[in-house]
């Protein structure tokens, strides 16, 4: 199903929760709404679901296959919704939770008990909880509960799946496993899915497209590669990972740091990701900066080196290099080194990356 959000503005009292949102959700894609808490991403999702309504004071419309759903009941939108805190029916077994959407159908559409049995059994296999039909939600782990919640949403064969921070309450390891599983499942089923998250890593990993939202506004829409490598503005680059800020002027493809430009306009701002910086010898002619090594964090797939500007100890620089490179260059705490950007690019509104 194709979902369009047109010029949507939502108020909560005087607070502007969503500010003129325009968005098109392509059938079959997994779209991530990414933003910090309070950015309006959950409000947008809940409005698509119908849990928040387009009130008289609000403007804009939400179209499902070109039809305005403002007047449609929540239950008639063909939506599967998964809550952050699962919202399983705690007095029902796993089986009954999944069967719920089928059992409440009007008599003429309701499947027979046999059909319900078959369907729930199939869904239990899909979520890899075959033997758990008679358990109660409180007997399951968080990850298992969220899979049950997903099966419950899928049981009614929705045209769209909406996930509100589905892995937010889970441990890091479970979260990583579950999102990989979700991605595979979504591709297999081909169901249009919208996922709300504040975790950039999660969005980058599972989404086909990412919508970056801040303060009720869309900052950028694009594939994970686009938003990561070609961020539209400063907010996006900051939100999608660590970034170093330098002030200076570019001359012949070379960056000349000039801290006197700190209060200048965007043209003197250069934002460079930690992995795009290189540590070189202090006298290297391509070094843009001399710095002192403060901390070295060896745990992780990359070595994180934190340095401070030699001329101003309050200014920090973060560099990420491979373990191999780290060993080769024999970097130690307290060393005075040079910093060199591997690439220097400029982008639309003037800031360089």
């Amino acid at each position, binding site marked *: 199903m194709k979902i369009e959000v047109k010029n949507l503005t939502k108020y909560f009292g005087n607070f502007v929760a969503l500010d003129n949102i325009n968005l098109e959700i392509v059938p079959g894609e997994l779209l991530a709404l990414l933003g910090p808490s309070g950015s309006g991403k959950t409000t947008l999702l809940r409005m698509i679901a119908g849990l928040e309504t387009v009130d008289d004071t609000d403007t804009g419309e939400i179209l499902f296959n070109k039809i305005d759903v403002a007047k449609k009941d929540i239950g008639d939108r063909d939506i599967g919704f998964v809550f952050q805190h699962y919202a399983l029916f705690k007095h029902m077994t796993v089986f009954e939770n999944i069967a719920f959407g089928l059992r*409440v159908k009007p008599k003429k559409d309701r499947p027979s008990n046999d059909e319900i049995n078959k369907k729930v059994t199939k869904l239990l296999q899909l979520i890899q909880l075959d033997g758990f039909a008679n358990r109660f939600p409180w007997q399951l782990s968080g990850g298992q509960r969220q899979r049950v919640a997903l099966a419950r949403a899928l049981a009614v064969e929705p045209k769209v799946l909406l996930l509100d921070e589905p892995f937010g309450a889970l441990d890091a390891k479970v979260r990583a496993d579950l999102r990989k599983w979700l991605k595979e499942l979504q591709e297999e089923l081909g169901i249009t899915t919208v996922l709300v998250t504040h975790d950039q890593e999660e969005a980058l990993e599972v989404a086909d497209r990412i919508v970056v939202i801040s303060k009720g506004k869309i900052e950028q829409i694009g594939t994970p590669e686009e938003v990561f490598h070609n961020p539209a503005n400063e907010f996006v680059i900051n939100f999608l990972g660590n970034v170093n800020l330098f002030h200076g002027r570019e001359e012949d493809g070379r960056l000349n740091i000039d801290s006197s430009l700190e209060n200048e306009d965007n043209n003197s701002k250069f934002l460079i990701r930690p992995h795009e910086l290189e540590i070189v010898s202090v006298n290297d002619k391509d070094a843009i900066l001399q710095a002192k090594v403060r901390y070295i964090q060896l745990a992780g797939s990359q070595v994180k080196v934190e340095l401070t500007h030699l001329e101003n100890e309050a200014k920090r620089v973060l560099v990420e290099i491979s373990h191999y490179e780290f060993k080769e260059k024999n970097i130690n705490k307290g060393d005075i080194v040079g910093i060199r950007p591997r690439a220097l690019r400029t982008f639309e509104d003037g800031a360089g990356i």
Partner: protein
Amino acid sequence: MKTRSNSQTSLDESKLVKYSLIATAILFLGVMLVVPLITIFVEAFRKGAEAYFQSFTNEYVLQAIKLTFITSAIAVPLNLVFGVAASWAIAKYSFFGKSFLITLIDLPFAVSPVISGLVYVLLFGAQGWFGSWLIANDVQIIFAVPGIVLATIFVTFPFVARELIPLMQEQGNDEEQAALLLGASGFQTFWKVTLPNIKWGLLYGVILCNARAMGEFGAVSVVSGHIQGTTNTMPLQVEILYNEYNFVAAFAVSTLLAILALLTLVLKYILEWKVLRELKKLKNEE
């Protein structure tokens, strides 16, 4: 060595405090609650079991018992509906005047029952606001059964709501939203999702509401008019029998109320345990 003896003294002291506190509490409960309770039964059976059972053959006594049951049979279901509706509104929606409504629900707890009864006399009595209209239309509320029911409803309406509001607030409305999104109707959502979640709390509130409805004296006394065989409930009948020096019958009827109280306590204990367990499960889930 010195510190050790010191700590022992302080330990002794705390033991002394502990036991004297326990003793005080038990003594107090014994004198104030247990002895009177035993007295009721002793007095009721003072002239033997036959006299005790004889008391219940009296027509007025039977009428009083019947009226008590009728009153609570009307008041409790009404307060159940009101309590569920009010706590639903308070727990699941936000609206203007919400905290005022919560305060209002507590009003019967704050007001003396006699005042509660008096309010109805002032409203519906012969000299009251609606008095002349009621007389003109031949409707009698005060000194009749409707007045008793009204006063009882007023006095008992906080019980169900008070019990359900915190429970429903704790549970939030995620489950209801999930049910609606799965296509359930409003009624299905209430019946299949909300009600099972609040059933023990609801029952607990109903039990307490019922105990109060059957035992209420003050408010009912004001509106009843004490017409024997017509507008007397059990507690009022006890007073009349006692004033007539018919002690055995007075205490015999009292035993019914005492047994009701004991039953209520047992049920309350069981239900409290169930509600606590539900809440624990809820905590577990988060």
